[in-house]
């Protein structure tokens, strides 16, 4: 179905399954400020205007001329690494009346190499990024996660918010940004992922257009967060609910032998309709609508978050702890583990139907250089035992709490 050629930094996925061709280029830098804020400003600028298309109108017209090409950029965290991705998505040539993929690739490279960088474009980018950060902070669920990570992870990558920091963004000058952009292009070989129908396409020409001519160096990404202190804070907001967020150190790395057991533990605790938290706190006691656990796999931490009435906070906190104890003492059904395994595998198998999910998988495989063979992973998931879950549960440690106390 997919013909895959991973010849790093190039990842070619040849398939006629989807109507689009996707080209994704990803630069990884160390996850610290001001890198992160700089990358976010560049992310905005690279998808805004370029020297060749110096107005928003010229950009828009060129994208429409390339058969409704969509250009987007985003930044994400991979533990100790921070990744700036810029990508295009455009119709495969079988759905257009003229060849355009090479032109589309040229357009993408132009946006990366020569974004429009002047005082006015920097000022616009800063203004919009700051507004976007404020919008994120206005959402209690996001604010809870950001604040608990900041509080617990002081001076570590965990405390660095992937979308940047308002004070740092405000302070960035044009010269600094230009120097950062130059360094990115001249010193960092990005990973390049191409997925689409290559029939009739000159792949050599495409590869030559997308070349950066640097040597791929892999930065450290996955690490195990080591807590140095506990963190607990409460703020008051005029919101209709109380948002309660807890953070835990899993002491388990992405490449650890216990990693899959840790993922299953999180699923059993709070990612399934029959997970312990959902059953006990929502279904049995009607204390919340939403409660979930999630893992930050490259940092070795896990979060639990829920929205409740403030009067129920102590009860909910106690019930969360009791569910963790159940898992640590093996007081859970074999069926729950079995279900978690099935759903984990279901997610992995479905990945090949979702282009971005598959590209992310390929990226992780290339970037971490871990052997992420799907069949072997699925077999390993099936082999996780009840005692493996207990072992994980026993080493997970509560390290932070952040409560946004609402009106209720």
């Amino acid at each position: 179905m997919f013909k895959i050629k991973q010849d790093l930094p190039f990842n070619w996925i040849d398939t006629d399954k989807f109507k689009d061709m996707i080209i994704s280029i990803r630069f990884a830098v160390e996850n610290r400020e001001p890198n992160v804020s700089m990358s976010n400003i560049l992310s905005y600028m690279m998808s805004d205007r370029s020297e060749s298309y110096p107005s928003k109108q010229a950009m828009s017209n060129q994208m429409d001329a390339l058969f409704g090409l969509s250009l987007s950029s985003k930044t994400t965290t991979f533990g100790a690494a921070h990744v700036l991705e810029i990508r295009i998505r455009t119709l495969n040539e079988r759905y257009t009346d003229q060849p355009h993929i090479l032109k589309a690739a040229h357009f993408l490279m132009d946006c990366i190499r020569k974004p429009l960088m002047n005082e006015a474009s920097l000022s616009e980018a800063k203004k919009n990024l700051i507004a976007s950060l404020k919008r994120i902070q206005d959402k209690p669920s996001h604010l809870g996660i950001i604040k608990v990570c900041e509080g617990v992870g002081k001076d570590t990558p965990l405390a660095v918010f992937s979308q940047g920091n308002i004070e740092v963004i405000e302070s960035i000058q044009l010269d600094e940004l230009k120097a950062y952009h130059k360094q990115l292009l001249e010193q960092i070989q990005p990973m390049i992922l191409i997925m689409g129908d290559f029939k009739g396409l000159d792949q050599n020409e495409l590869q030559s257009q997308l070349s950066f001519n640097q040597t791929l160096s892999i930065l450290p990404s996955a690490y195990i967060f080591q807590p140095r202190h506990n963190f607990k804070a409460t703020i008051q907001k005029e919101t209709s609910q109380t948002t309660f967020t807890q953070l835990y150190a899993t002491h388990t790395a992405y490449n650890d032998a216990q990693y899959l057991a840790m993922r299953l533990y999180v699923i059993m605790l709070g990612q399934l309709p029959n997970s312990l938290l959902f059953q006990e706190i929502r279904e049995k006691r009607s204390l919340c609508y939403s409660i979930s656990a999630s893992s930050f796999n490259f940092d070795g931490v896990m979060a639990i978050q829920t929205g409740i009435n403030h009067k129920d906070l102590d009860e909910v906190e106690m019930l969360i702890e009791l569910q963790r104890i159940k898992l640590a003492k093996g007081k859970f059904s074999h069926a729950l583990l079995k279900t978690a395994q099935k759903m984990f595998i279901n997610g992995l198998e479905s990945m090949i139907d979702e282009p971005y999910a598959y590209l992310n998988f390929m990226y992780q495989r290339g970037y971490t250089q871990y052997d992420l063979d799907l069949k072997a992973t699925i077999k390993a998931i099936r082999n996780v035992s009840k005692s493996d879950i207990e072992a994980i549960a026993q080493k997970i440690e509560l390290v932070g709490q952040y409560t946004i106390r609402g009106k209720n």
Partner: protein
Amino acid sequence: MRKTFKDINEHYDVFELENGLKLYVIQKVDYQSSVFYLGFPFGSFDLTQKVNEEIKHFPSGVAHFLEHKLFENPGGIDIMQSFSHLSCNVNAFTSYNETVYYFNSSKKSLQKPLNLLLNFVQNLSITEASVEKEKGIITQELRMYKQMPEQRLMAETYQSLYANHPVRLDIGGTEESVNATGMEDLMDAYRLNYHPANSTLVCVTPLAPELIFRWVKLNQDQKSFEPSHEIKRVLEAEPKEVVRPFHQFEMDIQASKITYSFKLDDYSDDQKMNIEREWQYRLFLELIFSPTNPAYEDWMETGRIAEYFGYEVEVNREYGFVMFYGENEDEHDFIDLIRSSLKTELGAFQQAFDLLKRRYYAQMLRSFDDQDDYAITLLRSHFNDVEMMDSIALLKSIQFEDILNIGEDLLNKPTALVKMTGLSKLA
């Protein structure tokens, strides 16, 4: 019956069962996963219904409440858990016009989960106690959405625009209406609206359509149902005027937001005409209020708009609006920007118009790759009594001349401005 669309390499099969259930199967042989969506045209707008000659009233949020209670466990079976055991994710959603139950799976043995879906949706099993218990959960859900700034802004905007149409109410109702909902309300709503003749199943799967049909038929042949009723949604007449031309409210936020909306009256009983009209609005608005217009960059540079700026447009059988949103502090400037731009001379936009149609065509083709998008769009097209591919044909048919007067027309429509500010900013 098979419908084939050669130029975009798509096709689907349509079946109808004896009890009236409609089945659409989109076979995608190179996909690993399958999705199944079972929908009913019963949504949050269905608060008053005419059944034969009888009028039934329901509390606001009843469709959503019913969706929650369908997952009740008859005979001690936990529905969600049962799906998980079969390697399936199950969920549901209620929207304005429909309630939909769905699951997905990467497995090929799908007869059991399909039976499970049909069986649990076709069998309501609730008690007074379980209805009461659910109220706490739904209350928390309503509160969760209420503290999301963008959602709250949209809700306040609908309340400013509409006096009577249920779009002014939250899909989940209010805490009061949820607390006032009883077991009888839910059972009545279920009995009237969940008949198989009222339901449509859409699946996107690598499996053969005939096989899916056989499984569904086998399941349905074992069941009997009361005769179905003809049900009509009853709506109060909606005045042309808006309810609140200006409204301001506070939230605990840093970024103030604003909407400026036009209440439309050019909608029709013919849904194809509505789709065409919506495309015309969309093409016009995108030409003027996006980077396609050179003035857009000036607005951004001079701070009249920011990245959080855009518009929504909706034209359907019951209502229509065009809504602009942004983060401006100065509402007068925002209104001036919108109204003066609606007068833009379109002559220079002919080429951009042609390219824009190309962009929207590409976006529609793209949506066929997404199993969930595909299934939901097909389901909604069926409930709206239009062909899914009509939208593509209608887009292609629109000429530049069709959009020339839209700006002037809009300027004559009633408007509503809604401003959401941080706590300290409201005078």
